[in-house]
């Protein structure tokens, strides 16, 4: 991990820019059962396999209800997609092992969902509020940071 020391052209300090080199490691697949929270389950999956960080290769399945958040002018707002039977079309982002969620980079995942009328929504998955309905199938791949 390298901290860049050169000042950026816009005058902002680049001291806190971190450029990691690394590589992808193990691939893990999972089935998440009903009423388990998607974000929490993926974090637990990382912990189970001793993966400090992983990228989402693919997630699909269904949710009891979907809840997504986004930043608005007046703060963070949330949108509920009422189910049961909200479909997960895909999920993007990286997962941090549950034991590391107090770190500076907690898990934040973005998703595209479709409602029971087929309408599509996208946003950030709200932790604890996206519970599996019938099943969720997930594929994660480990991200291994190499030393500087």
């Amino acid at each position, binding site marked *: 991990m390298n901290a860049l020391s050169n000042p950026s052209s816009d005058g902002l300090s680049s001291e806190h820019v971190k450029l990691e080199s690394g590589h992808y490691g*193990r*691939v*893990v*697949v*999972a*089935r*998440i*059962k*009903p*009423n*388990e*929270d998607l974000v929490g*389950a993926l974090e*637990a*999956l990382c912990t*189970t*396999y001793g993966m400090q960080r992983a990228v989402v*290769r*693919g*997630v*699909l399945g*269904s949710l*009891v*209800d979907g809840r997504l*958040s986004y930043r*608005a002018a007046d*703060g*963070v*707002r*949330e*949108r*509920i997609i*009422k*189910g*049961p*039977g909200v*479909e*997960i*079309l*895909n999920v993007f982002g990286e997962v941090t092992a549950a034991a590391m969620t107090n770190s500076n980079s907690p898990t934040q995942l973005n998703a*595209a*969902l*479709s*409602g*029971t*009328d*087929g*309408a*599509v929504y996208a946003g950030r998955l*709200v*932790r*604890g*509020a*996206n*519970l599996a*309905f*019938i*099943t969720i*199938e997930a*594929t994660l791949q480990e991200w291994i940071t190499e030393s500087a």
Partner: protein
Amino acid sequence: MNLSFHGATSASAIEGADPSPLFKLNAVSDPATDADYPRHAHNEANTARGFCHPGTATSPRMLSVQIRAPQDMRITIPCGANVGKTLRDALAPHHYSGAMGYICRGSARALQYHVIIAATEGDRPYIYGAPIRESGEATFINGTVNFGRDANGAVLLHCHGGYADTNGVLHGGHLILDETVVGAEPLVMHLCLFGQGGFVQGEDEETHYKLLQPYAGALQ
């Protein structure tokens, strides 16, 4: 449809997901509206409702397996091709136990998808509704697919995807790749083939569906 979600009800049932007397929602409060609201207005821990399926919930609540010998691939499916058949045929020479992939780009000139609706009969409270067919050009915006196996080793494609119709309206759901024909733009997908391990279809005691479950074995 490749997974064993059976049955369908009238199209009108798609409009409303009224709770069936066959199931019970464990709602502390009903997050009933689609309207946006400030995060602070709700206590996250109290508003996520669960669902009680007809069968017995079993532990552990997550099943997983590590994949051996994953192999990344990219496929371009030409205009006019059936997506499901093309995927099966193209990967057949490769000895893979399972795979996953996602749609990068492309369009369809025909596709079919399903959404989940309340059942009116049977012991499964929710089922996939009647097919919803798109006959105009559909521009894919995303899509994820799992290549599972049935008990006989046949490939099962489980895909969820979204697209924009010719008016720019977005739609999405359980996409049937065997009913999807590539449109004006070739379909590009990135795939990860599994040398050993993946998903195999099995009965689920809790939901009473046949679902894809992780397994550690290799294709015989």
